[in-house]
């Protein structure tokens, strides 16, 4: 288990040659930095145990164990071998071009030495590798190359090199002895082995094509030599970017679930493996944390309460399981429940065989496709299994199976479909519905209504559309385009990008991209070009009239969502001005968040927040009061029993004071009117209004504040008048609430 990590030294040329480029092109160093960031991100996201070191050469600094006054100058180990982390990431971002000469060979020696020192006496390294980034523009000394190569081989260190181009045009002859395509070479390297070619067309070849200097040619020859000797590979920047641009979640090791498949008297040991299942990367699991102190994780308490107006908490011991039978509650204790449960044994029994044609894809159920193979240890049984697969394949049949994972789980129905490829033989298992899972829907034949019948012209147009948009051979090389095997889940990509972005620049709003469309831009464009004319014809020939009955989305998100985002942006921009210090550090991030949070009235210390905001004078008084009002309603509505009433009362009193102070009695008075109406509408919250009356928190009168037009008698009456009580069901509370809040906003 432990011996599968890799020790990887990233050796980067930051010398003069790497930063030279024509205007409008990214310098080789810039591209190198991008690639390095991707490598490090990927290692972190995959929670890889691989260890990385970063060694720069060609800069001003010298920091390595071999350096003395004359040797190994301008080579700096900036990150010692350890698992990837954000510090390494930040070191990479900090890379600046140097203008000192440094020796490529020396750098490799330093790297090899570093790897040796750091791994010596430790277990678990499956491979040691040097990843060299250079365009070979800086001169170096190769007189001791032979010795160094021997030493590398002896230590089992592989050297891979990544550069702008490896002179393929000029040196076609060495194509053959080079390990071919990068995807096949590195069996030991998790990254490249799992990196798949993509249909992505948007990798700009950002590095400039320019003829190689004689120095570069020599350099390339030597690098070729090193790479070949150590059985490494050469990659161009373009290849590396292509392989790394797709984020990948941690790969799951396939694990077998074993069953005994039964068919009459035949019993076979089989293994099932998950072949296809929606991938939800574990790293995306989010914790709830406290906004003002992200280090503290929020705990959740799920208490049981009586479902009446008393809201009494019930102890665990006083609860029993039960079911609803119509309106009757049927209590059933745990033992009875276990007795009642359907008893089944673990099984995988073939009920019978059926025509494969009967197995409509629309019937498939469940979330997994399993691969089923015979357990290899049992040779005779495996042979029998293979015979069965072949016979099913030849007769085009599938097997209907009852499968039960364990005694404790419910049995399911599924089917086995034989699959035979030239080098692979297995069956696929997919779950099938029970009778109860089917829903009978009947739809009229479309041809019955005459206007639904397309005419010959129309049919011809659609025929054309299908032909012009046929993807079966639309990819480069006439391959099938949009193969599921090659399309990454845009959500996973976006999530990874967002994590990376937020980690590095915590104060910036997220930039969200990565739709399937964007990721396959070139292909989509080319199809669009081809199908354009046909689409115009479709537009002419088919009359599609929007009835405008589709309601415009009128949810809270649409109404307030945009505001929120712009508000957030503004808030974050503010932050950037205030905090120019090391904003990437976690503490700063936390502090920024904390400060930022007091841009709004929070629920934990609302009174304090409110006062701070009023003092700050921004946002405007009305806005802050509005926030406060909303918050008070939140408190009242979310209060369990009267637990939050005290807080709400404090808020109200504070609001009242401020309104008197700032000569804005109308804000408070309007609020109290709404509050009263609110209290009368929803039962359970009358009790809060009662508190207001008890505390004699009246409308702000003209005596208290000159701006008020409420005379004291009116204020008194307002408090004393009975609230009109409407008997309302519990159900519509939510709607009522929303309405109330909107009213409130109207009033203010």
């Amino acid at each position, binding site marked *: 288990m432990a011996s599968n990590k890799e020790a990887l030294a990233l050796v980067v040329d930051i010398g003069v040659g790497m930063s030279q480029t024509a205007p409008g092109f990214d310098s080789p160093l810039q591209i190198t930095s991008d690639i390095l960031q991707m490598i490090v991100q990927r290692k972190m996201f995959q929670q890889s145990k691989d260890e990385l070191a970063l060694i720069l050469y060609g800069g001003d600094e010298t920091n390595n164990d071999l350096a003395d006054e004359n040797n190994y100058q301008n080579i700096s180990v900036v990150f010692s071998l350890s698992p990837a982390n954000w510090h390494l990431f930040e070191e990479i971002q900090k890379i600046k071009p140097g203008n000192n000469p440094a020796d490529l060979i020396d750098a490799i020696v330093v790297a090899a030495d570093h790897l040796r020192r750091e791994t010596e006496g430790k277990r678990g390294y499956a491979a040691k590798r040097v990843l060299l980034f250079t365009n070979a523009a800086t001169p170096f000394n190769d007189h001791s190359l032979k010795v160094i190569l021997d030493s590398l081989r002896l230590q089992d260190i592989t050297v891979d090199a990544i550069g702008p181009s490896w002179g393929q045009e000029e040196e076609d002859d060495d194509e053959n002895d080079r390990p071919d395509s990068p995807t096949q070479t590195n069996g030991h390297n998790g990254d490249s082995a799992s990196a798949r070619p993509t249909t992505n067309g948007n990798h700009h070849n950002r590095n400039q094509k320019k003829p190689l200097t004689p120095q570069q040619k020599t350099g390339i020859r030597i690098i070729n030599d090193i790479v070949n000797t150590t059985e490494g590979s050469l990659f161009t920047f373009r290849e590396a970017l292509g392989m790394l641009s797709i984020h990948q979640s941690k790969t799951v090791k396939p694990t077998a679930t074993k069953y005994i498949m039964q068919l009459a008297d035949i019993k076979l040991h089989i293994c099932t493996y998950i072949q296809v299942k929606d991938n939800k990367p574990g790293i995306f699991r989010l914790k709830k944390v406290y906004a003002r102190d992200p280090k503290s994780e929020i705990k959740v308490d799920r208490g049981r309460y009586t479902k009446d107006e008393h809201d009494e908490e019930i102890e665990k011991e006083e609860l029993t399981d039960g079911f609803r039978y119509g309106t009757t509650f049927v209590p059933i204790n745990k033992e009875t429940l276990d007795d009642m449960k359907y008893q089944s044994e673990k099984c995988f029994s073939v009920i019978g065989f*059926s025509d494969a044609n009967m197995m409509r894809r629309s019937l498939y159920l469940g979330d997994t496709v399993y691969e089923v193979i015979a357990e290899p240890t049992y040779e005779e049984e495996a042979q029998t299994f293979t015979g069965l697969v072949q016979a099913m394949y030849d007769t085009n049949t599938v097997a209907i199976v009852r499968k039960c994972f364990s005694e404790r789980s419910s049995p399911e129905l599924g089917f086995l479909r034989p699959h035979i490829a030239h080098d692979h033989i297995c069956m696929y298992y997919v779950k099938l519905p029970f009778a109860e899972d089917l829903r009978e829907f009947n739809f009229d034949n479309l041809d019955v209504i005459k206007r639904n019948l397309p005419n010959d012209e129309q049919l011809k147009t659609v025929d054309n559309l299908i032909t012009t948009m046929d993807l079966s051979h639309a990819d480069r090389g006439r391959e099938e385009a949009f193969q599921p095997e090659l399309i990454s889940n845009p959500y996973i990509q976006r999530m990874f990008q967002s994590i990376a972005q937020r980690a590095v620049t915590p104060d910036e709003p997220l930039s969200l991209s990565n739709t399937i469309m964007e990721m396959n831009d070139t292909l989509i464009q080319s199809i669009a070009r081809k199908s354009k004319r046909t689409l115009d014809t479709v537009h002419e020939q088919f009359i599609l009239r929007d*009835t405008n009955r589709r309601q415009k989305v009128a949810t809270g998100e649409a109404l307030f969502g945009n505001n929120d985002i712009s508000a957030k942006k503004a808030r974050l921009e503010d932050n950037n001005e205030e905090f120019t210090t090391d904003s990437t550090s976690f503490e700063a991030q936390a502090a920024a968040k904390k400060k930022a949070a007091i841009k709004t009235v929070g629920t934990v210390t609302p009174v304090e927040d409110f006062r701070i905001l009023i003092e700050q004078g921004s946002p405007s008084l009305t806005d802050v009061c509005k926030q406060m009002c909303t918050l008070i309603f939140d408190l009242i509505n979310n209060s369990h029993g009267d637990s939050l009433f005290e807080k709400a009362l404090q808020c109200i009193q504070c609001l009242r004071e401020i309104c008197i102070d700032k000569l804005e009695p109308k804000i408070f008075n309007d609020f109290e009117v709404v509050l009263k109406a609110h209290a009368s509408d929803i039962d359970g919250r009358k009790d809060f209004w009662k508190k207001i009356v008890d505390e004699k928190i009246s409308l702000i009168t003209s005596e208290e504040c000159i701006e008020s037009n409420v005379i004291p008698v009116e204020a008194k009456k307002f408090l004393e008048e009975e609230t009109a009580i409407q008997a309302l069901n519990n159900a519509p509370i939510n709607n009522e609430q929303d309405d109330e809040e909107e009213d409130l906003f109207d009033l203010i």
Partner: protein
Amino acid sequence: MSLLDQNWGAGGSAEDEAQDENQQGRPITTNRDGTLILIECAPQMFETLANQMKQDSTIDEDDEDAQLTTGFQLVMRACQRFYQSKIISNDKDLSGIILYGTENSLNAFDFKHIYILHELAQPSAERIIQLETLSNKDTFKAKYDELFGSTQATGYSLNEALWTCSNLFSNSPQRLTIKRIFIFTCNDQPHASNLTLERQAKQRAKDLHDVGIQLEVFPILTESITKFDFKKFFQDVLMLSDEDLEIRNNQEPTGRLNELLKLVYSKEHKKRAYCTVPFSLGKSSDGTPLEFSVSVYNMVRPCPKPTKIKLDMKTNLETKIVTKHYLPETAEILMPSDIQYGLDVANRRILFDSDEIKAIKKFGDSGFELLGFKSLSCLLPHHYVKPGHFIYPDEKYVEGSSCLFNALLKKCLEKKMFILCQFTARRNTPPRLVALTAQAEEVNKKIKNDRLASNGFHVHYLPYADDIRTLPKNDTTRAANDEVDLFKNVIRGLKFKYRPDKFENPALQTLWRNIEATALNKGEPDEFIDLTIPSVENQNRKISGYVDELKQMIFPPGYVMGTTKKSAAAKRKAETTSSPSSAKKTKPDEDVDVEAAAKSNLLSKLTVPMLKDYCRDKKLKASGTKKQDFIDVIQSHLGIAQ
């Protein structure tokens, strides 16, 4: 089944459409049906049933049903079964029972001889148990007398009974999608002697019809009443055309009643779109979006199990769960705005607001976006991630949708192509790639009206690259032809025609029956026959010849299939339990067999867990837990001298 189904009768689909118009892309509030059962308690109802009725009603040779000698008992049993079935199929639906022609009266208007036994409400165990006593031959008479009075009244009015029903409907606190009244009577001309009452009743029936309340009549035949002529009175009440009347009068009177008497353990699925969304083909050159509209349906979904609830032991009442978020240090209760979402990557906590989490998931508006077309052969057997949908054009939002949809359907069928789309089901769900395969209408050749499949497109979710796992190649040697041939015989022997509605869910059915038995204090739950358990005996009868031949051909004599190999198991265990260092030293294929080691006197070189495993397998009892104890017992077991 149809009596439990809301689409029974007219008007259902119109209501449905009205529903999903407001519910664009959102879960729909429950719509409920309301059923009132109106029972005439004339003296004839207590006569012995007509023979034909008795025979037909004992459908499943149930002993209990054989005891039902009178019409009244039969009707009570039908009501009971109706309730029972409703609880499983749709327990939100409301039902009630009204008797008319009783001595006692109980209703809001003080109408004489009308007794509301059950108000319009959800069914409950209490009601069912009460109905049971009203159908049981030992108790029904006494119970009847107690509740409704011992004599039968005359001069009651069907008009007033219907008026009572209508009043119950209009007072229902819940909005009802379908309202219907089932009338049970043995009297085909209830007001033969009173024309005024007859006219009033017919008028009332018409009024009910106008407000969308459906009426249905279930005739009860007895020894003295052997014929029920709808023409006499009920044609007008039910608004039957002459054709319908003909059908009705020739129908077996028990057909529909038997449907009610059957106990159905099946959930009802309402015909309702999962969402109605635009289907975009792209844009024409002038920038107009080319869009039509489709409704998305779920054709297959796992039927939910009854949810377990937590009850308060003291009161036997339901409880609710209240979730509070609090800070562990201060126990401060937090509001949603105080909560952020964080994840830890390489020791750094990365934070998002809930809005940002939503935004990351949002890629675009809901709907289908055309990417292109592909040959059906591109759709591989393992391209599946979750249950699909079915789409059918929708004219409400975009007129002309059906025509374009139909053209696509016809051409995809003809060219054997499927449509590749990007599909966003709801606004905040990330898009998925879907394959739309064309489905032509299929009609049962024997029965014209039996539609096996409707025309439209099936929506199949495709996996992404992230979802497909790379598994090791399994390349076993292929079997010889004669073996394959034998298997072909096995397959032929056990071949049947798979139908998706053939197998019921054993776990679900068992649970339903058990809950019912507990709720109704039944000793034993209803029996359930599990068809998913294959009968090995039957299978053997058909194919044992071939199986025997196969065994001889492939397996060594005496081989027992399906038993775990002892040595293999010990070997695997040994490999996993031994320490990594020793695993490194020993090559994986090196024999670590305990017995071999014992014979070469090397037991002391093995680890304690290996020895322990061996002892457990052989059921050997060591005298202690020291290594030597195990070695001793193994050696003595194998008869090797120390």
